[in-house]
């Protein structure tokens, strides 16, 4: 859409220019063409990402062989993002050979700096979802740190868990709070919940009921059932500096029940 419209102002501008300003016009034209070119390139990259994401959705949720073949073709041609998409798709399958293949493509993409591939591998390594079926904590740390440092909020969430629980290293509650904050700022509701718990308990951060309530509420707005329930309980019992309020309690209970049918998804 933007590709088709982006060049238009440039042509319009050129049509109105006076010949005396030819040099200036040339500069403007070159600059405008540059801008339009960058926009077109950006659009092209976005369109390609959307296309890969579309194939990945079809290949994973609809088991579409044609979409998988397209991903495989692009991956074989060396496209890093396609390798990540193909790898993630295959790693999510049930059979061993597909999963091993998936890990291989993800590694290739991660070696090329693909953030999503780092995240997928790191999460799988933490949760024991690599083809070995066992957790690989050193790899979890490596991949999740790489992705989190690149600004990936889901990776920051899992890195926060690693810091919180230790997972092969000494637990570091303060670092956990830092990474969970990155994830929470990035919209991860489960990170908001754990961050609220940390403020509530004073774990890795100074105890602060008001901030705890703030994060529970932020997660509640994203339909995170446990956060809504925490607020319900607090209104029932007068916890977290909240005044006991039967109306708020019942309202939050009803919302928690409702949210359970479509909980905020953990990345």
């Amino acid at each position: 859409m933007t590709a088709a419209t982006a060049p238009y102002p440039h042509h319009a501008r050129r049509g109105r220019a006076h010949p005396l300003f030819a040099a200036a016009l040339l500069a403007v034209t070159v600059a405008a063409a540059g801008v339009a070119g960058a926009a077109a390139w950006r659009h092209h990259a976005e369109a390609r990402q959307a296309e890969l994401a579309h194939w990945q959705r079809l290949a994973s949720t609809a088991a579409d062989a044609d979409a998988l073949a397209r991903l495989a073709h692009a991956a074989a041609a060396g496209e890093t993002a396609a390798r990540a998409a193909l790898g993630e798709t295959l790693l999510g399958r049930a059979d061993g050979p597909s999963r091993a293949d998936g890990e291989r493509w993800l590694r290739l993409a991660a070696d090329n700096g693909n953030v999503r591939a780092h995240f997928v591998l790191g999460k799988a390594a933490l949760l024991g979802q690599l083809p070995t079926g066992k957790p690989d904590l050193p790899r979890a740390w490596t991949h999740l740190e790489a992705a989190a440092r690149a600004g990936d909020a889901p990776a920051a969430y899992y890195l926060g868990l690693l810091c919180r629980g230790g997972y092969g290293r000494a637990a570091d509650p303060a670092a956990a709070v830092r990474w969970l904050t990155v994830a929470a700022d990035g919209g991860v509701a489960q990170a908001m919940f754990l961050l609220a718990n940390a403020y509530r308990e004073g774990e890795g951060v100074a105890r602060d009921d008001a901030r705890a309530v703030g994060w529970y509420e932020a997660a509640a707005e994203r339909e995170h059932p446990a956060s809504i329930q925490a607020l319900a309980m607090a209104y029932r019992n007068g916890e977290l500096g909240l005044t006991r309020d039967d109306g708020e309690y019942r309202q939050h209970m009803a919302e928690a029940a409702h949210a359970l049918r479509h909980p905020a998804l953990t990345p």
Partner: protein
Amino acid sequence: MVVCSSRNCHGTDALDSDNALRSSTPTKNNATRESETMQQRIFRLRSVTLATLLAGAMAIMAACGSEDSAGNGNGGGTPSALVPAGTTATLALLETTDLHTNVRSYDYFKLAEDKSLGFERVATLIKTARQEFPNSLLLDNGDTIQGTALSDYQALVKPIACGETLAMYKVMNDAGYDGGGIGNHEFNYGLPYLSQVTGSRFNVDGLPDPGTQTACAGPKFPQVLANVYSARTHAPLFQPYAILTRQVTATGPDGKAVTAPLKVGIIGFAPPAILSWDKRWLDGKVYTEGLVETAEKYIPEMRAKGADLIVVISHGGLDASAYSPTMENGSYHLSKVAGVDAMLIGHSHQIFPDAASTVAQFNLPGVDKVRGTVNGVPTVMANYWGKHLGVINLALAYDGTRWSVDRANTKVQARSIQNADKTYVAPDAAVAAAIDAEHQATIQYVKTPIGTTDYRMSSYFADVGDPGAIQIVNMAQAKYVKDYIAANLPALASLPVLSVSAPFKSGFGGGNDYTDVSAGNLAINNAADLYLYPNTVYAVKVNGDEVKAWLETAAKRFNQINPALTTDQPLISTFPGYNFDMFTSADIAYEIDVTQPVGSRIKNLTYLGNPVTSAMTFIVATNNYRASGGGNFPGLDGTKTVYASPDANRDVLISYIKNAANVTRTAHGSARSWRFTQVTTAGKVVFSSGVGMLQQAVDAGLANISLDKADDGSGKNLSQYRIDLSL
């Protein structure tokens, strides 16, 4: 149909039959058919190369579009020559959303009226609005067929027959809805059910060929959903859009009333996350497309078919973060798609417009929460459960070739069923009358005994060892998880399955704040007393050390007792009772030594008589709150979950009781996994519980409890009891 074969043009039987069933006017019938046939064709050509596909689709689009226009004489966006330029009109879009089968103003758990909600009251607002506005369309946003005991009754308890219409759709048919969207909750009971009750014939895996299906009774208005597709056919599950042609009363440039035809295109969207939320029903059967891509695909098509206006019915809220095709609340980005004239949104259970709203999604750049616009597009969200009616009164102007929305004179409102004086509008009596049989049957169902108990199941002494109200929950959870693992997770089948639960009601609110179920019949509503919270069952995999750490945290429930003190010592700390997780099984045993500091209280923890060690692995059944980190228990951070069930703990308990039929103290209320480490104290150790409840401790076999003070002095209707820790 000359260019296309009839097979090509009417290929999707499900959609086509929908069409025939729902069409109330020939024009609408043709309009919707056009959209469906296009889908069909595009799908049919998928296997060809991209270039061929595009060329083919465009050729067919041109051929069929023009042909259908010629056929019905009003297509192609050509306005009637009778309407002069300068004509103006208004069109009120009336929205309901997230009704969740709250037909009556009634709470089926309390078995009592609840005037603050219910379609029967919104129906009154609809009548009023129709009197107020000369031209209106009544549209529903979805999340319509699930959410109360009534919906469960019709879906699960006594599933409605093919020829019957759901109570919710029945009253919507009576109210004369013009169209509806599909929300995420429509998928909660599975695709066969959704296909049946909407009068569809889905062409998806798990259902027979549409040609052999019978189209059942359903809504008499078109239901639109553009971004959910059958994995089998790659065609939309529902018709993606419909074009409603209405004769509207307008005002000519001379000020005189004229009648003008208006074609309103409605297009529906559901949150792509349905694939995760209802994975068990949808996995591999349907897939979703992004909202923006879908809108960009269909809106030009709708315009080409003559739609004067495009009304988006988006079951999702506003989220201004970067667009993604899987984002849950995509309505903010939809507002920026060219050609969108108005948006009816929902899903978030909020009110928009609302000048006082503090909700983050209504305080974004481009969102005018006073006027009710999103990036300039008039938008309404009508709360939930039939508490509000959304109204967008579009001001329309005709310039001789097309209608356009005069945004400056368009007004958006969310109208409450509550009056300014806090009373509620009267219900429309016809609504209750239309579904009285279904309503009464649901009440009977809620009251029907699901089993009996031979003992009074209470939590008055749960803190000091009575498992009477907790063990049945643990037994139900353990059995449910064990069965699931045996059937679905063979790799875990060799691991022992344990269960924990806590006394959710343990007196914090006073003498009435305890679980207390009388001996005798157990009904559905007793289950809410035995399991207070709306949780779902989760199973976590933990090792022996993690089990011990879990119990150490739970044991914070108690103060540290100094045996040498001669003064009274309160046993119960400020640690909430709802976090006092406990096992209640003969297989696992432990002591809680309250003379020790927090973290060193669990002693002699054994499983089947053997000490529990880090080398042992267990599956522990619990709930979503605990498994995802609620209560901040060490190690429980969401990563240990091996099964996140969609089933509610309370429903699992109900089905366990139904299966057991007779609940007994011996079998379901006497397994004490834990006891206090014995210690003689110089002074009294005391705690509070309900007044006059000592017999409950006696009946539970707790011989070390005595009444200390009839009134504990808290003013909360509690007595003070003493526990002798040496016994």
